[in-house]
């Protein structure tokens, strides 16, 4: 790969990791803020 390709690959990797971290943070905030009804919680655990 030439230098330009490496730069694009680096930028792409940073964007992918950044996007994943933002997605994960939003998902965690939603989980933390939303109480789960008991029956649904038990089903989630039993389905593991």
């Amino acid at each position, binding site marked *: 790969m030439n230098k330009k390709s490496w730069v694009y690959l680096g930028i792409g990797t940073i964007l992918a990791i950044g996007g994943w971290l933002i997605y994960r943070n939003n998902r*965690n*905030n939603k*989980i*933390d*803020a*939303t*109480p*789960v*009804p*008991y029956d649904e*919680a*038990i089903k*989630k*655990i*039993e389905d*593991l």
Partner: protein
Amino acid sequence: MYGIATYNASKAFIKSYGVGVANAIKGTQLYFPAVMAQSALESGYGKNIPTGSNNFGGIKYAPGLPGVIGYVSADTTEWKNGKPYKTIQKFSKFKDVESGFKAHIQVLLADRYKNARLKATSPEQQILMIAQAGYTTGTAKEYLDAMKGIIEAMRDISKLGRIS
């Protein structure tokens, strides 16, 4: 962040004890990942509890707690003036696993942890507030740091926060 070993151990721990913990924390405002992570850390995922004690919360001997049938003496690390030291302590011995978990939850339902239950907005914050309220003899930050990865794993696996 956490490794694959933490993920696997956390998943197995939830499969073994998750339903019991969910039953006990329903409607209490305690976060499922916080209680599971605390139990996992204090007990070494159930492998390092004082022999025969069924004590998953590292609960010191408290004869008044329901299910306590005596105590076991075990080596433990305590903290004084910011420094760890090894000592032997009496830990509560419970009649069965369920009683051990119930007692752990009952300790967390005490008035001293009310703010942690009601005001925390994440399991991480709840553990920090529980530690600040006196659960551990070490610093609250160290207690949380020891548990952060396990909390993340428990949340990622269960997709649960509070249970209503």
